[in-house]
């Protein structure tokens, strides 16, 4: 018998257990070195890996404040990501227009109020507008594109984005507007309480945002997991033709999904708007949802939430403790960096469905 040469094992790019073990070992070594004084203050290793944690320990009130701020922006990222997840689950399409839908919903609400409509009536009217938007997207864009490749539907959402930008500027003008937070009875001011020798200040609007977002996320998760509509929705996402053959109406499902995404956009618009103001610049923030989705998985509602929180908190901690080392301003790209690191370990995201396919 002749010796058969063993084929070379394929190169592994994803980290293995050994990589993780190595990282953990390095962390322990660093900690020991620091405690024993081998690496002193001022050493670059100390500045990057040890000093930020020392700062956290020395001023816990600042840490809590930073984490809280991260939590709040995380909740808002989660809200935006949720809008993406809804549409992705139902049609396998990454809806590029979600960001502009947030702006459009906010502008419409303020616009109605400026026309003299009472705030809560304006809210209901805006819901009506979002419903009309869902119906027209279904009629004009989705219906003619049934069974087309996903990339075509994706490009179509670019089209929707530009139509909405144009429409928004035409009707409401390009100037930033003040969100009508007071009129919608959203709380103002902040609560301060002493904590570990310092003070932590929580904005009431942030608390309200977190609560409302949590409620909405719970309701949506339940709706899509436990109802017949939820099952129909997952069916549509899996196969258009099979869904049609059992009599699921694609049109109805799409209207429901886009309307739900519209409601999510409206809530997001109100909450973001109340913290800054409503302007077209907000749609850039919506792109922050991308790392959140990579982290959480495109198909998972809980993933959107956890991903949002990780990105939000990670971003704020990074900016506050590590930012000064490189002159600040890392908030704008840190999210993508975190997402990239996660991708190495879990390409399908934290909660994404691992695709099982027989070949």
């Amino acid at each position, binding site marked *: 018998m002749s010796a058969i040469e063993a084929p070379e094992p394929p190169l592994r790019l994803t980290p293995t257990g050994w990589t993780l073990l190595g990282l953990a070992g390095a962390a322990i070594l660093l900690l020991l070195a620091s405690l024993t004084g081998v690496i002193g203050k001022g050493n670059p290793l100390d500045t990057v890996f040890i000093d930020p944690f020392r700062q956290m320990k020395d001023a816990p009130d600042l840490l809590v404040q930073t984490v809280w701020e991260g939590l709040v922006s995380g909740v808002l990222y989660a809200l935006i990501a949720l809008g993406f997840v809804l549409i992705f689950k139902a049609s396998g399409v990454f809806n590029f227009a979600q960001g502009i839908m947030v702006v459009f919903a906010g502008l419409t609400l303020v616009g109605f109020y400026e026309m003299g409509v009472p705030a809560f009536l304006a809210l209901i009217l805006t819901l009506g507008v979002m419903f009309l938007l869902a119906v027209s997207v279904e009629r004009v864009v989705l219906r003619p594109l049934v069974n087309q490749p996903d990339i075509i539907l994706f490009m179509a959402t670019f089209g929707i984005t530009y139509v909405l930008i144009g429409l928004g500027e035409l009707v409401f003008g390009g100037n930033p507007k003040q969100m009508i937070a007071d009129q919608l009875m959203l709380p103002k001011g902040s609560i301060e309480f002493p904590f570990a020798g310092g003070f932590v200040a929580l904005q009431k609007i942030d608390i309200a945002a977190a609560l409302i977002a949590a409620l909405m996320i719970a309701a949506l998760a339940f709706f899509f997991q436990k109802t017949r509509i939820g099952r129909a929705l997952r*069916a549509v996402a899996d196969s258009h033709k099979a869904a049609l*053959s059992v009599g699921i109406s694609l049109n109805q499902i799409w209207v429901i999904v886009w309307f739900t995404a519209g409601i999510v956009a409206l809530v997001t618009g109100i909450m973001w708007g109340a913290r800054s103001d409503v302007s077209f610049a907000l749609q850039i923030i919506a792109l922050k949802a991308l790392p959140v989705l990579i982290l959480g998985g495109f198909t998972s509602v809980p993933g959107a939430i956890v991903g949002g929180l990780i990105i939000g908190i990670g971003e704020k901690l990074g900016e506050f403790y590590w930012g000064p080392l490189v002159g600040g301003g890392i908030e704008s790209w840190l999210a993508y960096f975190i997402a990239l690191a996660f991708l190495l370990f879990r390409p399908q995201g934290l909660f994404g469905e691992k695709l*099982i396919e027989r070949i």
Partner: protein
Amino acid sequence: MRAPGSDKGQMAGDVLLAVDDVSLSFGGVKAITDVSFDIRKGEIRAIIGPNGAGKTSMLNVINGFYHPQHGRITFKGETRQRMRPHVAASQGIARTFQNVALFKGMSTLDNIMAGRTLKMDGSFFWQLFRHGPAMREEIEHRKVVEEIIDFLEIQAIRKTPVGKLPYGLQKRVELGRALAMEPDLLLLDEPMAGMNLEEKEDMSRFILDVNNQFGTTVALIEHDMGVVMDLSDRVVVLEYGRKIADGTPDEVKRNQAVIDAYLGVPH
């Protein structure tokens, strides 16, 4: 499910579905040219023909995926120019696909439950809370689905995501989903493609049982001539989008045009 043991011989006769002069083309390609045939209540009707003869296109016309340029489709006495998938499904036409089209991420149970979509009409409100009428409805439909699972002998894979199942079982789940619609007309597109002998025999038995016990009318496309001749009551033969023969399996087998189509003609 309908009463079992209905007398098949007596039921056969009324026309359940008829296609008249149907023509379908995609741009310059003529998929179907002036084809007419009917499907009678309670029979098993086979559609055969060489590759590219327009068999699948015909099924797609019947359940409304394709809209023919000419011709009429009469189902249950109602004549239409074109079907729509939603209408077809709600009127009682169920189907399976040549390349299995299941909801891959969902379990066997959920896939078959999806077949009950049109039978469920509980209010949206109750569904939100999964209580009252909606809960009763869910239980009731679950019962029907469990019967189908027993019938198809797939109890063991009830909770398995269908993407993980071997091909033969996927085809069976797909049949289950179609049966869950309690259809009057069941369209099967190559139900036995890619199966081994044993799986083919199982599938044949299921098709016969569905036809006998529930009185469901079946129209099937199949390439295995042994199966076709054994199962079907009548056969329609297509070639290059035209109908070249129509009759009982024996008549079709002796038909010169059919023999030529399958074996070729000396030039």
